[in-house]
């Protein structure tokens, strides 16, 4: 099914007699969902863009590339730096803004400016009985009623099919510099990143993998020079300065997790507090699980590649995460995996009960991506 209008979509959902697998461009699907495919690519187009108000409204099926091009023409961007999943997941197709919103996709700059959900000002969606609902709006400050926008962000199509999203956008800064160290242990890296993130120098990215630690500074050219100098004289002594396209390439690599592209293992995305990140990797080692790791968000976001286990390392990993607080999402199943493993981190009973009850309210027939989130 590929509706061309919101009314078509509402009709299709109201008339659906079985489960639906909701997708935008189909580039970032996680887990396996049985159901008739319902894709939103037909609901496309930017409906409003006011650069002076930092606001853009687009239909859910609008290609991310189209939005980024429109923004770039005005010197603006999606500041939360959404990942392109195609290389990692081996998918093709066209990433859509609805997919970004439904998966709350946020990249390295999340630690400075916030997640996708923090940039979502409003949504319109069709619920499980075919009713069109709107929430939020297109202004930056809005506390009128409950914030269903946050609830829809990262709900992976299980609560409703988004038809329109309003976003806050930001200007592309004049300058960007990345400070790089090529030979650090994970412990040294976290220490350096923590110190940089705790400085007044407004770090907009802090990542580490394969011995390389990288810290990004953005802003007006003079300001960037000043802050880079301060960091090189303190927290990031011994780091070299990388600029321009070379700097940008370093972050695309982390954002899109390209070092894990083309591999066969399970890929996990883990969020813990930065000081717990290295401990997660140690716990896996202690349990005899060999793995590769990319640290983002100053050490608090781990991308893990775990090969050769029937459960993809789920049991050991999730126990380690539960011990410190956080969550682990199975973004890509490993080819060696034989066990059924929930994609999303199992929640405590009380929280899980609320989530289940909310899904039942929004989608009483349980037809949206059934089983995906519990």
């Amino acid at each position: 099914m590929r509706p061309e209008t919101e009314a078509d979509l509402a009709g299709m959902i109201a008339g659906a007699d079985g489960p639906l697998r909701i997708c935008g461009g189909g580039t970032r699907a996680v887990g396996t969902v049985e159901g008739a495919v319902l894709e939103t690519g037909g609901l496309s187009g930017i409906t409003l863009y006011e650069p002076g108000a930092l606001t853009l409204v687009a239909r859910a099926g609008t290609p991310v590339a189209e939005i980024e091009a429109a923004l770039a023409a005005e010197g603006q961007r999606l500041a939360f730096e959404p990942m392109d999943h195609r290389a990692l997941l081996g998918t093709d197709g066209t990433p859509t803004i609805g997919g970004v919103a439904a998966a709350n996709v946020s990249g390295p700059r999340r630690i400075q400016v916030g997640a996708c959900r923090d940039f979502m000002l409003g949504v319109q969606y069709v619920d499980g009985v075919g009713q069109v609902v709107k929430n939020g709006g297109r202004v930056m400050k809005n506390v009128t009623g409950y914030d269903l926008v946050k609830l829809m962000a990262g709900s992976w199509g299980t609560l409703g099919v988004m038809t329109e999203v309003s976003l806050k956008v930001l200007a592309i800064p004049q300058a960007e510099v990345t400070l790089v160290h090529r030979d650090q242990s994970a412990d040294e890296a976290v220490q350096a990143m923590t110190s940089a993130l705790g400085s007044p120098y407004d770090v907009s990215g802090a990542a580490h993998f394969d011995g390389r630690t990288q810290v990004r500074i953005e802003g007006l050219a003079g300001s960037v020079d000043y802050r880079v100098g301060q960091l090189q004289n303190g927290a990031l002594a011994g780091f070299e300065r990388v600029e321009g396209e070379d700097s940008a390439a370093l972050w695309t690599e982390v954002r899109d997790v390209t070092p894990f592209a083309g591999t066969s293992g399970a890929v996990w995305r883990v969020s813990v507090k930065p000081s717990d990140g290295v401990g997660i990797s140690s716990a896996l080692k202690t349990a005899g699980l060999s793995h590769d790791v990319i640290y983002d968000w100053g050490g608090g976001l781990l991308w893990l590649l775990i090969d050769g286990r029937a459960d993809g390392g789920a049991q050991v990993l999730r126990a380690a995460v539960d011990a410190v607080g956080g969550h682990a999402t199975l973004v890509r199943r490993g080819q060696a995996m034989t066990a059924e493993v929930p994609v999303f981190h199992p929640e405590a009973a009380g929280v899980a009960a609320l989530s289940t009850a909310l899904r039942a309210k929004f989608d009483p027939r349980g037809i949206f991506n059934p089983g995906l989130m519990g």
Partner: protein
Amino acid sequence: MDMPTPDPRVLEKKAAIVAALRAVLPADAVISDEAETRAYECDALTAYKCPPLVAVLPSSTEEVAAALKVCHRMGVPVVPRGSGTSLAGGALPTADCVILGTARLNDVLETDYANRVIRVQSGRTNLSVTGAVEEEDFFYAPDPSSQLACAIAGNIAMNSGGAHCLKYGVTTNNLLGVRMVTMEGEILDIGGAHLDAGGLDLLGLICGSEGQLGVVTEATLRILRKPEGARPVLMGFDSSEVAGACVSDIIKAGVLPVAIEFMDRLCIRVTDEFSGAGYPDCEALLIVEVEGSDTEIDEQLALILDIARQHNPVELREAETGDEAARIWLGRKSAFGAMGRINDYMCLDGTIPVSELPLVLRRIGEMSKEFGLEVGNVFHAGDGNMHPLILFDANKPGDLETCEAFGAEILKLCVEVGGCLTGEHGVGIEKRDLMTHQYAPADLEAQMAVKDVFDPGWLLNPAKVFPLQTSETRRIAAE
């Protein structure tokens, strides 16, 4: 303003309710004497008052849970209260309710500079969160103007903003986790010191739910390293349109000031007379503040002043010293107090797209003549969050009603031009009956369905947010 008729079955069992609460709480935590409950009869929306049946002041999450279990079992409505600074009536009691105050929940539980988070009990005041970390040069960013008094619990309930949220975001962007008690008395941990939700974003839903989904007792908040410095610049313009265009150009230019504040002629005059800030005599005034080291500030201000000059300002005043910076802010910070000195006023809180500023200001001016009441405009221009102050005389019969009608028209205008009823104060009772102007029945139904999940008995702050008529069947069915 209508409120539901108090439930006589609750009123008549007051003694039993008090006894049940006393059985689970320390003796001094249950307030039932009518002379003392009067202290909780209103919040900062003082036009409406009603003493509660009982007030309770628990000192721990467990005591909150015990009190809520009693109220749930006995079918008593509960109105959570932070510091009572709501301008929307969010903490206004009903005669049949228990006020649950967070005043005794004010400890810092954990400060963690390495991970840049602090965990506090929710009754702690906003400013004292920063107070707990400023010796290490950190701060908590959301800064509502009541920050000296307002509690984090209330900030979370209303998703409070402040003057500096253009750069740092509002409460929901700085809240990482909560410990919350449901109406049934169940204790839940949602989120934590890590970023973002692993499943549905319940934290984002709870923030801004006006105390209708649960009582937050602890919060994990993001703290930030303080910038090296900050400096404001003052700009005067001979029309609001030009000031609005200047705001738009600054935002587009790629500098992100930490605040852009706007005042119109009436506010400029009144605050200047009150504070002696030395503001220019003009139609519109902007205060733009940027942060960083001295050289970074110079760089940003050079760009901003260049933009301002293209709009033919009648005055551009850069603060050369800390003292001059303080004087630039002096009038703005005393604006509400200064306006209050000349008259009673009602403070609105609608948000509009920044591009609609000139139109909205013109329409407000026209409506001011139609209703015969003066309006001063002072607001956060960078994000379009307006605060029109309608002046009225509380002692003059009918003036409050005229003022409320005028206010409602302004808020409807905000919605018409693509904005919303409230940007940072919340709906409470004040904007409750206007919700149908912003949301269609299905939109409100979806929000009420969320309350059904968290509080099926509609006992938590039940008469707020949704128009009484809209929520009536649910509130009655639940009894």
